[in-house]
């Protein structure tokens, strides 16, 4: 990804971001609120269309946001990533199982029997084998978020995007969701995760990006960025979230 920027009106939220997400690696994006980290993630699947910049994929597919985005390119780009939202955004009128099968059946038109089998496997993997026929309102936040993960996995993306997946959860439910994400990391999924969980970021990421004010302040291995940060802003931020002053 090269020269990415994003403006809302006069407000430039992302300023000339360059980054790379290697296949099979986990990239964590951290930073104070308002730093642009969620916007950056949402640019990766064009939920926010970048104002400038280019994406290049290994398979040769590329998108240039300096020109008007073609509808087909937009769909291809979205097809490459699965997204997990902070507020889950499950389809409330569909059961857990139907949430997971919706993309593969309706958009990808895959074989119904195979899709249902896969959805059941994914829901079992996230620990919801006995909740498949429940509607979202019958599930806890942590369970809903795990359905969200299964739904994103079901479209068989190349890249999984997580937008603060545990920020809306009660503290005791965070662990289950993080464990699922860790498991995916171990299986070799390529992932970009926006999170405030420093401990988790240290454990699972291969690469950490620290953002502030729309810029990438610092990036590198978790040891480099989270354990021994060079930049003052990174140090300040980590101090504040690790030892919250009351």
């Amino acid at each position, binding site marked *: 990804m090269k020269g990415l920027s994003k403006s809302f009106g006069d407000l430039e939220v992302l300023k000339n971001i360059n980054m790379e997400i290697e296949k099979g690696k986990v990239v964590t994006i951290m930073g104070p609120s308002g730093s642009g980290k969620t916007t950056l993630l949402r640019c990766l699947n064009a*939920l926010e269309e970048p104002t400038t910049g280019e994406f290049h994929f290994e398979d040769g597919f590329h998108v240039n946001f300096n020109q008007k985005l073609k509808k087909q390119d937009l769909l291809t780009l979205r097809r490459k990533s699965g997204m997990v939202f902070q507020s889950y955004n499950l389809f*409330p009128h569909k059961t857990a199982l139907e949430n997971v099968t919706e993309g593969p059946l309706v*958009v990808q038109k895959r074989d119904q029997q195979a899709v249902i089998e896969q959805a059941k496997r994914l829901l079992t993997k996230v620990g919801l084998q006995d909740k498949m026929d429940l509607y979202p*309102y019958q599930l806890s936040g942590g369970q809903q978020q795990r359905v969200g993960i299964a739904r994103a996995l079901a479209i068989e993306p190349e890249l999984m995007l997580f937008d603060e997946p545990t920020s809306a959860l009660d503290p005791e439910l965070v662990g289950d969701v993080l464990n699922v994400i860790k498991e995916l990391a171990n299986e070799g999924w390529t992932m970009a995760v926006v999170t405030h969980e420093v401990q988790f970021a240290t454990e699972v990421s291969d690469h950490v990006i620290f953002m502030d004010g729309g810029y990438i302040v610092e990036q590198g291995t978790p040891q480099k960025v989270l354990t021994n940060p060079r930049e003052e802003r990174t140090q300040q931020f980590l101090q504040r979230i690790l030892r919250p002053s009351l």
Partner: protein
Amino acid sequence: MFLLNNTFVFTITEGTAGWELIKQAFWPMVEGGIKYTIPLTLISFAVGLLLALLTAVMRLSRSRIVRAPAAFYVSAIRGTPMIVQLFIVFYGLPNIGLTIEPFPSAVIAFSLNVGAYASEVIRASISSIPKGQWEAGYTVGMTNGTTLRRIILPQAARVSVPPLSNTFISLVKDTSLASLILVAELFRQAREIAARTYEFLILYIEAAFLYWIICFILTVLQELIERRLERYIAK
């Protein structure tokens, strides 16, 4: 022909009164209800809803050129009396060589009317669905159209039912206006009989009761539909 075919009506003459009159007037009115009031309501509502959906989607478009005609249509219909619209279609259009029978005239006017009012209801309920639902649709690969159809409209339908039921019940009663363009519906029958017997009070109250019964049944149906659509909502 959709003109008067009330064979019963002419057997009722001046001097028939009281319960006898109520009984004798009952079947012509019910017949008017079954043959005209109810079909007129159902057809106009169905056509109106399709118009409304189209109009609502047009009004939510990003393009001005798409939005403008829809906004014009809604403004024109909501800004003019229904009776005037009805008269334009039935009495006005023949002046430019377009003569339409009473019943289809009524269907046209009522459909256009429902389309404008219901489009506002549908537009509001689509807007009430959180943006995250659109985004979730996009992230599983859906286009705008598929997201609207599969994700947004089923949820918007639930929000729409109570206000649309209002429109529907209003429509049942508004069809009585069709009596003014010679449709032999329920109220037209009441007026015919009243004109022969001078028993206005009894007959109009009887007509009112019949409308009330129809609307009461519809309200019960509305509750059934609401309960069905709310099965995935936390109680």
